[in-house]
């Protein structure tokens, strides 16, 4: 492009990659990694907080007792993360208190001389990748908007820095209290930190420990996550809505088939006859004349209508194919009782019974009928009607239940997940979901 050569020797030299200095408090060697950008450095041995801009003068000190936490990502570790190489240069433990319980989480400051800073937070095995935002979010009470996306308020707390190691491009103060507010839109969390009149916003994205371990080549495995974290993606929620949409489509298909079935069932009556039965000693069984079932294999309804009054009749039916010798054997009871009591007239049972036989092939058939009843009830009259190709409603109900149940189950699982998530927040959403346990 331009003919001029790059500025030789004119631009000041870059900082050497790693500087080793001595801690003025305890003499231990300090490794400084961020090339003159550090504002505060914490000595790894005596935990003194040193002012990097003022010749490492000692500002204050972290109590040795708070140093139980060792960073899971050792300072100095490098890894390829989000397209650039980063080095872990700082480690912080921050705590907040709720209902008398202290909750602590850890933050790892990552540095790239090109891309700058980002930090990884870890709590109960849940990791987040956070960077300072560039556009301005708008906080509106219980929600915040950032770049067109709405985030729901999850928690406001006062965070204190209880321990730190390494270097930071800001001033680190022991027990420094900062008001932190989190808004979530899983897998993202929009966090605001306010000190005095200055507010900094960061956007975090939920990431899996395994990815971090892989990127930084860390030994062992990432700690296992416990519970549901504020911006942990559910994976179930989107699936649940998709499933319900599928359900609607499938239920509609079911309804269409039902309607077609109703319309196109031939409901052809092939036989009807009236008989009388009297329970006596003689042989009760008899056979009907032949009738033909034409067309395709279909359902066949055998309907019994009996004039009963406080009686019962039991019919042993067999539908027999004359040519093949195949019989379909079944028994039906018809009983009907009626009376009057203090509440008025009551009835029990019915004078009609309908049995739908499944998938009867076409052919020439007759019925073999053997009635039974109480002796001494006199003559019982009943009509037998045979109809082929009738629609069967029960199979539709079963299919509908088969479609509905998994959808309900899935929604319940998704709801359960969200309940677990919001149980930890400032505003529990569920009935009976208590505070932060």
């Amino acid at each position: 492009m331009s003919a001029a050569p790059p500025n030789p020797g004119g631009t000041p030299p870059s900082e050497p990659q790693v500087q080793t200095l001595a801690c003025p408090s305890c003499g231990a060697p300090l490794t400084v990694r961020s090339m003159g950008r550090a504002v505060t450095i914490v000595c790894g041995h005596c935990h003194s907080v040193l002012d990097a801009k003022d010749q490492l003068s000692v500002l204050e000190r972290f109590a040795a007792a708070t140093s139980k936490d060792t960073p899971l990502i050792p300072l100095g570790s490098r890894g390829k993360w989000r397209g650039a190489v980063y080095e872990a240069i700082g480690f912080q433990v921050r705590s907040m208190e709720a209902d008398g319980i202290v909750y602590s989480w850890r933050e790892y400051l990552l540095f790239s001389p090109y891309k700058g800073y980002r930090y990884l937070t870890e709590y109960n095995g849940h990791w987040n990748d956070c960077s300072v935002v560039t556009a301005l979010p708008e906080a509106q009470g219980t929600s915040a908007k950032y770049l067109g996306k709405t985030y729901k308020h999850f928690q406001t707390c006062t965070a204190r820095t209880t321990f730190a190691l390494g270097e930071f491009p800001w001033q680190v103060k022991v027990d420094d209290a900062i008001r932190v507010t989190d808004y979530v839109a899983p897998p993202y969390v929009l966090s605001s930190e306010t000190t005095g009149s200055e507010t900094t916003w960061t956007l975090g994205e939920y990431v899996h420990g395994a990815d971090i371990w892989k990127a930084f080549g860390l030994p062992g495995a990432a700690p296992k996550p416990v519970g549901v974290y504020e911006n942990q993606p559910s994976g179930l929620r989107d699936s649940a809505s998709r499933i319900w949409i599928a359900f609607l489509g499938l239920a509609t298909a079911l309804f269409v088939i039902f309607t077609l079935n109703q319309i196109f069932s031939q409901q052809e009556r092939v036989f009807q006859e009236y008989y009388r039965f009297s329970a006596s000693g003689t042989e009760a069984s008899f056979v009907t004349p032949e009738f033909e079932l034409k067309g395709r294999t279909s359902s066949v309804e055998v309907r019994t209508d009996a004039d009963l009054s406080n009686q019962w009749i039991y019919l042993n039916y067999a539908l027999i194919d004359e040519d093949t010798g195949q019989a379909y054997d079944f028994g039906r009871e018809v009983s009907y009782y009626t009376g009057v009591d203090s509440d008025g007239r009551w009835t029990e049972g019915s004078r009609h019974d309908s049995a739908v036989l499944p998938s009867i092939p076409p052919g020439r058939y007759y019925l073999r009928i053997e009635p039974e009843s109480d002796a001494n009830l006199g003559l019982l009259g009943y009509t037998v009607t045979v109809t082929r190709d009738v629609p069967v409603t029960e199979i539709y109900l079963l299919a509908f239940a088969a479609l509905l149940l998994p959808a309900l189950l899935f929604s319940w699982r998704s709801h359960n997940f969200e309940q677990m998530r919001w149980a930890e927040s400032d505003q529990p959403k569920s009935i009976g979901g208590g505070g932060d346990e």
Partner: protein
Amino acid sequence: MIWSRLYLIYGIGVVLLLGAGAYKGWSFTSVNEVKNVPRSIRDNPGSYRAIYSSYHHYTGGK
């Protein structure tokens, strides 16, 4: 994502099965199939009981 796909495949299976059932005339009534009923039953219906292997006698009630 995978769950909704699985559900859809399952649901289509249910609907297809139902369609087949509606066409074939399936129902829930339990029926015992007896094979090889001889033509002689037409003349002597009482002899059907002998060939009906799991004949059950109605004992009253439902």
